[in-house]
């Protein structure tokens, strides 16, 4: 019953999203596209950190690997998007596993350090490998084309992203419900016990890390097509913090949480900007200078606040609100 109701709601939501470009201004569609890309990246980090308990501080760099792969696959190999995007995912997965593998065998902090190293080393490569990445200036990317039909504006690219979002959300849901997903949770909760019960934990950590990085690469590939350029600045540590905040705020280990977290964190900077500009103009000083640090502060506060007060995030709050609503309606 509840399952049917959820499917109904999901279909209604998707129909509304299909109709969205006809209803709202263009700027919103741009925004919805970025949001859709963030959702895929956050799904990836959620599989790693939320479900399997492998903390990655380098997610943005793996997104960057995907974006650069698309840019290069297009300009050097002339690949169409339906080959370039999977290739972006594979490239990011290989990078992720390359950095993660030595420390996946060791518990605790070491993977965190390895992913942080990946963040800085990959970003360094984006900036300094001039011949391939064109350094700080970055690369331009031609829009994706389907059957000779270019996805050259926000609305057309939006539909591509929407399709990917639905596909990758469904895939994540199914992986989590499978044997593999249960193994992920077992690794997170009690790795020793899991091993004794025959779950090959190193293998599943490896799978989770590869899968999460694959999602990151796909998100990066979509981002390259959507922005039509790639540069190193997009993939800094702040973006990794952003993804981590989204996973925590949404609720670690919940697909719904990953979506809610991505929505919340994507909208938040806009609200901050709006609020800060309103406050600034009413007091008559220029507040645009403090926007970036303000964002950092709020990201940090959300991470700390949710971890201490509501570690299961918005998904849990949502569930609680839903239950309240349902009990009231049945009592009446």
């Amino acid at each position, binding site marked *: 019953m509840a399952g049917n109701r959820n499917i109904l709601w999901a279909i209604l939501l998707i129909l509304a999203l299909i109709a969205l470009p006809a209803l709202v201004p263009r700027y919103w569609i741009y925004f919805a596209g970025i949001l859709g890309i963030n959702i895929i990246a956050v799904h990836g980090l959620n599989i790693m*950190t939320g479900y399997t308990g492998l903390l990655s501080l380098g997610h943005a760099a793996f997104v960057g690997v995907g974006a650069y792969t698309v840019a290069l696959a297009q300009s050097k190999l002339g690949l169409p998007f339906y080959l370039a995007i999977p290739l972006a995912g594979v490239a990011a997965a290989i990078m992720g596993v390359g950095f993660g593998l030595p420390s996946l065998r060791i518990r605790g902090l070491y993977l965190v350090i390895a992913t942080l190293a990946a963040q800085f080393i990959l970003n360094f490569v984006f900036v300094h490998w001039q011949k391939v990445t064109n350094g700080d200036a970055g690369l331009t990317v031609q829009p994706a084309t389907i059957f000779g039909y270019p996805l050259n504006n926000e609305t057309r690219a939006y539909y591509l992203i929407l399709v990917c979002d639905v596909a990758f959300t469904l895939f994540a849901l199914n992986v989590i419900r499978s044997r593999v997903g249960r193994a992920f949770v077992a690794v997170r909760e009690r790795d020793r016990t899991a091993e004794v019960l025959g779950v090959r934990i190193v293998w599943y950590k490896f799978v989770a890390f590869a899968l999460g990085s694959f999602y990151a690469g796909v998100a990066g590939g979509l981002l390259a097509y959507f922005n039509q350029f790639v540069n190193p600045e997009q993939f800094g540590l702040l973006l990794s913090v952003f993804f981590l905040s989204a996973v925590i705020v949404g609720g670690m280990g919940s697909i719904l949480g990953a979506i809610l977290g991505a929505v919340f964190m994507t909208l938040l900077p806009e609200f901050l900007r709006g609020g800060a500009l309103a406050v600034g103009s009413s007091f008559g000083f220029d507040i645009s200078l*403090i926007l970036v640090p303000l964002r*950092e502060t709020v990201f940090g506060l959300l991470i*700390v606040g949710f971890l201490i007060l509501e570690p299961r995030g918005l998904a849990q709050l949502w569930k609680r609100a839903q239950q309240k609503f349902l009990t009231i309606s049945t009592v009446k």
Partner: protein
Amino acid sequence: MNPMVMFAEYSAVGIAAGGIYALIALGTVVIFKSSQTFNFAMGEMMMLSAYFFYTAAVTFALGPFFGMIAALIGSIAVALIIERFALRPMMGRPFIAIVMVTFGIGSIIRGIVGMIWGPNSLDIPAILARSPVMIGGLFIPGKTARAFAIAVVIVGALIAFLRYSRAGIALRAAAADQITAYSMGIDVRGVIAFTWVIAAITGCISGVLMANVNSLTPSLGLVALNVLSVIILGGMNSIGGVLIAGFIIGWLESVTGWLIGTEFREITPYVLALLILLIRPTGLFGTAEIERI
């Protein structure tokens, strides 16, 4: 110039920079030892202390001496607030949740400093003389040499203190076995708070030294991420290890920068960290607390 002399000079400068690394690493290691908490906000605590120093010494015109005292008091207060209100509620929670909390705290501090003091570099009153130091014909920049001397003296004093004082013994007891230490009457919470105070002190001194050698900007704290490789090389829980590891990493950083190009300096510590993880994850002096699975 003779390449051997160049090599010796780069080595000396690198080892001198390593002194401050050891100081930063020490603060992180004591916290890790007492509570298995890896403090990713160490760099930001250090950067914030340097801003406290600037504000007390320049804005309130207290001068360097009272500025330093004010900065120390401020840093200790901040560290105790972090420990009490962000980390104590997390006790017993999964390890990655705790790491993420410290990471979030770092983000908060970076943001607040950016909002209050702005992104531009500030002129901090010079507490280190500029005149270069010559050691046996080697030329070492004055500020780096003096910062090294101060850092090494403080690290040495702290290591001795942690080895011989009651507080240091309590710390080691709590690190070895928290529950037994607790039942023997050691105030484990007090020990943890005490390690945060030590981290605040080392962070404050290294922050002010660092701001003197380089400049004072909100990105000053990123140096502490370079120190990760020092901590791993020294062995995560070895207090004495940080000093030698600091020298080695500082030296390698400087020499690789000289040999293959200065831009590579910024990633040398991370490459080293990865290599250490591959070859010897316990570091040089860490006890085998590494759990392979």
